[in-house]
C-alpha cells in the first residue's frame, strides 16, 4: 500500500511538472542565480567527545571530510526551482529543494542527516544510598561494577552514537479548472541507526542494575493525502495520515543472577521466576497509526469566525512475545483509539477582541491480559519454609488496563482589549478536566488557568510586555491515593504527616483490638519493607504541583538607531502543600546589540537560570 502511494505521488508530480513546463515555455527567459562552495571540514578531539562534539559537527571521529555547499535559484517564467545543500561531513548534512510550477504545482523536499552522541550513565551514582548496608553482605543497590567487572568495563567502553536521517516531502496541486481546491500530499521517512544505552534492573526491586548497549535500527514511514477547499465563506481542510514504525535491531539481554540468600531455611532462588537466566529486555514495539483530520472555518463579517475540527486516529502496537517468559492471551497487537472534537469562535466588539473555544477528546487505550509462563501460586513470601496460601495468589493471566485511557474536556475564553493606541490588555481563562478510566488509582485532574497580559509602547524607542498566569490544579496526576496510611484510623500524626507505626502491625493484647494480621498477608511476626515503610506512606504520591504561578516580563529599549537593549525575566513558582513540594524558577536575561560603525556589529547576551526544588521523599532500603 505504501509503495503504491509513493508511485501515485511520483506520477502525479511528473504529469503536473510536464503540464506546468508547457505553460511556462512561452514566458520569460531563464535566469539562474546563487552560489557554490567547495571546501573541506575537519575535527580533532581530545579526551571525551561526548559533549564537545555532542551533535556531531563534521563527523563523530577525528578526521577531515569533503564539504560542498550549493545555494541556487532557477527562474523561467512562472517556474521556480530552488536548491540548497550543505554537507559538512558524512553525518552532518542538509539538502533542500523547492519547485513552484506556475503555482499549479509546488513541491518542497528536505533531507537532514544528524549524528548525536547519546548519554552514557556509568551507574556509579546508584551507590548513593545504602552503600554501607548494615547486613554487611552487599551494597543494597549494586551494578555489574561489583557483580561482573569485565562486563561493566566493556559496557563503559562503548560509544553510544545515533545517526538520524529525515526525508520530508510536501506537494501541492491546484487544477486550474478547480482553483478553489488545493490538493496536498506528503511523505516523511525517518531512520535512526546506531547504539544507545539500555539500563535494566532485576526482579527484586533495584537490587541489581545492569547496562548494555542496545542497537538502534528504526524506520518511520509517514504518508499524508488531503486538500484545502475554499467555498465562499467556508474553508475546509482534510488530511489522511498513515504512519508505520519498525524496529529491526536485536534486543540487549539482562543477566538475572541467581540469589544465594537463604532466609529462615528458605532460599530466595526458590521463589524467583527467573534465576540464572539471560533474557531480552528493552524491546521497542513496531506500531502503526492511521488518522483522519477535518477542519472547517467560516469567516463572517465584522471580523467574526467560527471553526471546528474532528480528529480520529487508530494506533496498533505490536509487542514481542517469549513463550518461555510471557505471552499475550488475545494476541500481541494492542490497539488504541483517539477521537477529538474542537470548536472555536472569535469576534470583535469595538476595541475588544474576543475568542471562545472548547475541545473534548477521548483516548481509549488497550485492555489486555498477559500470561506469565513461570508464575505460580503459593510462594513462600515470608521465608518460613512453608508456601503461603493467605492473600498470596498472583493472577495469571494478569489483566492490564492502559493508564493513558481518559476523557478530556477543555474550555477557554480570551479577551484582548485595546486600552490606548499602543497598549493592549489581555485576560484569559482555561479549564481542563481529565477523567482517567483508572480513576480509582490515578485520580481525575481538574486545572483552571487564569491569565492576564499587557503590552505597551512608551514612545518610539521603548516597549514592554508583561504577563502573569495562575494555575489551580485539583488532584494532579498521579496515584493520589496510594498511601496505605492515608485516612487510616490508627495513623499517628507527626508534624503535618500521617504515620502508621510498626507496632500497629503487631497485636497489642491490652488494646482490645485484634490486629495480629492487619494487612491480611499472613505475616504476623516480621518487620519488612511492605509492612513497615509502605504503610507509613501518608502522603499523596504525586510529584506534580497543585498551584503554579508564572510571570514574564520583557522590554526593549532602542536608545539610538545603532543600538538596542532587551531585558527579560521569567519567574515560576510551583507548590503542592499536600506532598510538601515546592519549586521556584528564576530566568532573567539581557541582550545588547551595538553597531559602532557601518562595518562593525556587536551582540552580547547573558542568560541566567536558577531552579530550586524542595520536596519530601522516601529513599528505599532493601533487604533481599
Amino acid at each position: 500500500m505504501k509503495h503504491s502511494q509513493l508511485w501515485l505521488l511520483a506520477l502525479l508530480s511528473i504529469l503536473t511538472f510536464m503540464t506546468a513546463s508547457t505553460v511556462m515555455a512561452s514566458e520569460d527567459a531563464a535566469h539562474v542565480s546563487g552560489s557554490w562552495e567547495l571546501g573541506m571540514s575537519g575535527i580533532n578531539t581530545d579526551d571525551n567527545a561526548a559533549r564537545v562534539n555532542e551533535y556531531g559537527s563534521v563527523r563523530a571521529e577525528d578526521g577531515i571530510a569533503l564539504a560542498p555547499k550549493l545555494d541556487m535559484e532557477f527562474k523561467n517564467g512562472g517556474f521556480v526551482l530552488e536548491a540548497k545543500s550543505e554537507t559538512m561531513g558524512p553525518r552532518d548534512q542538509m539538502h533542500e529543494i523547492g519547485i513552484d510550477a506556475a503555482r499549479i504545482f509546488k513541491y518542497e523536499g528536505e533531507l537532514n542527516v544528524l549524528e548525536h552522541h547519546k548519554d552514557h550513565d556509568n551507574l556509579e551514582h546508584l551507590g548513593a544510598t545504602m552503600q554501607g548496608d548494615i547486613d554487611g553482605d552487599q551494597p543494597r543497590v549494586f551494578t555489574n561494577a561489583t557483580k561482573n567487572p569485565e562486563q561493566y568495563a566493556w559496557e563503559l567502553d562503548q560509544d553510544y552514537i545515533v545517526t538520524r536521517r529525515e526525508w520530508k516531502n510536501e506537494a501541492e496541486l491546484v487544477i486550474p479548472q478547480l482553483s478553489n481546491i488545493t490538493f496536498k500530499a506528503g511523505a516523511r521517512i525517518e531512520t535512526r541507526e546506531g547504539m544507545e544505552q539500555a539500563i535494566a534492573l532485576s526482579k527484586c526491586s533495584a537490587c541489581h542494575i545492569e547496562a548494555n548497549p542496545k542497537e538502534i535500527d528504526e524506520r518511520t514511514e509517514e504518508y499524508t493525502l488531503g486538500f484545502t477547499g475554499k467555498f465562499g465563506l467556508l474553508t475546509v481542510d482534510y488530511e489522511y495520515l498513515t504512519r508505520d514504525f519498525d524496529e529491526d535491531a536485536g534486543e540487549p539481554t539482562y543477566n538475572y543472577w541467581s540469589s544465594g540468600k537463604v532466609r529462615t531455611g528458605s532460599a530466595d532462588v526458590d521463589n524467583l521466576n527467573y534465576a540464572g537466566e539471560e533474557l531480552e529486555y528493552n524491546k521497542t514495539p513496531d506500531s502503526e497509526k492511521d488518522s483522519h483530520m477535518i477542519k472547517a472555518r467560516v469567516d463572517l463579517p465584522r471580523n467574526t469566525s467560527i471553526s471546528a475540527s474532528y480528529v480520529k486516529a487508530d494506533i496498533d502496537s505490536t509487542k514481542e512475545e517469549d513463550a518461555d517468559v510471557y505471552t499475550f492471551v488475545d494476541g500481541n497487537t494492542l490497539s488504541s483509539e483517539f477521537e477529538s472534537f474542537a470548536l472555536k469562535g472569535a469576534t470583535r466588539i469595538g476595541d475588544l477582541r474576543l475568542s471562545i473555544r472548547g475541545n473534548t477528546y477521548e483516548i481509549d487505550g488497550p485492555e489486555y491480559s498477559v500470561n506469565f509462563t513461570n508464575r505460580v501460586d503459593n510462594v513462600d513470601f515470608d521465608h518460613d519454609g512453608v508456601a503461603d496460601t493467605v492473600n498470596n495468589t498472583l493472577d495469571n493471566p494478569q489483566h492490564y488496563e492502559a493508564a493513558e485511557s481518559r476523557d478530556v474536556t477543555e474550555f477557554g475564553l480570551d479577551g484582548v482589549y485595546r486600552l490606548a493606541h499602543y497598549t493592549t490588555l489581555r485576560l484569559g481563562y482555561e479549564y481542563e478536566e481529565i477523567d482517567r478510566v483508572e480513576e480509582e488509582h490515578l485520580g481525575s485532574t481538574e486545572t483552571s488557568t487564569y491569565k492576564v497580559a499587557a503590552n505597551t509602547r512608551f514612545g518610539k524607542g521603548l516597549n514592554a510586555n508583561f504577563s502573569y498566569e495562575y494555575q489551580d490544579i485539583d488532584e494532579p496526576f498521579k496515584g493520589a491515593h496510594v498511601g496505605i496510611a492515608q485516612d487510616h484510623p490508627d495513623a499517628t500524626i507527626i508534624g503535618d504527616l500521617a504515620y502508621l507505626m510498626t507496632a500497629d502491625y503487631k497485636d497489642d493484647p491490652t488494646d482490645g483490638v485484634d490486629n495480629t494480621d492487619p494487612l491480611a498477608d499472613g505475616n504476623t511476626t516480621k518487620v519488612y519493607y511492605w509492612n513497615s515503610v509502605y504503610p507509613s506512606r501518608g502522603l499523596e504520591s504525586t510529584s506534580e504541583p497543585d498551584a503554579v504561578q508564572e510571570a514574564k516580563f520583557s522590554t526593549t529599549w532602542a536608545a539610538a538607531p545603532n543600538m538596542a537593549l532587551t531585558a527579560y525575566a521569567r519567574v515560576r513558582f510551583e507548590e503542592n502543600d499536600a506532598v510538601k513540594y515546592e519549586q521556584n524558577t528564576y530566568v532573567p536575561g539581557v541582550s545588547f546589540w551595538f553597531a559602532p560603525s557601518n562595518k562593525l556589529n556587536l551582540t552580547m547576551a547573558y542568560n541566567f537560570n536558577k531552579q530550586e526544588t524542595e520536596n519530601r521523599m522516601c529513599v528505599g532500603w532493601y533487604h533481599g
Partner: protein
Amino acid sequence: MSADYQASEKLNLDASFVYNFAEYSWDWEFDSRPTLTAAGGSKTIGAYDTWDQNDLIDSYSDLSYEQYSITLGGTYNFTDAFYTTMQGTYDIFESDEEYVYGDEDGKAFSGYFAVGYKF
C-alpha cells in the same frame, strides 16, 4: 557575544564566544524528618533510618560543568563573484563532577575552509 566586522572592502571577519556554567546540588534536612519506630522483628527500622545510610546522596548530587566555545571566521572576496571562506571553532567542556556520566572533559577543534563562487 559575537562580532561581525567588515575589515575592508574585500575582507569580512566574524567572531563569537559562548560560556556556559551549570551546577546542581542537593541538601538533606534530616532534622525536620520524623523517624519511624519499630518494636521487635527481624530488623530495626531505626537502624535503617540514619544519616550514615544516605549521606552519599549529597556528594553524588553535586554536579557541575563549564563549557567554552570560541569561533573565529572570515571571508575574503577576490572578485565580486569569487571568494574564499574559513572558520574555526574551539570547544572546551570541563566537568567538575563525574557521578552520572563519568569524566566528560573534552576539547574539540573543528574547522572549515572553502572557495566559493557567486553566479
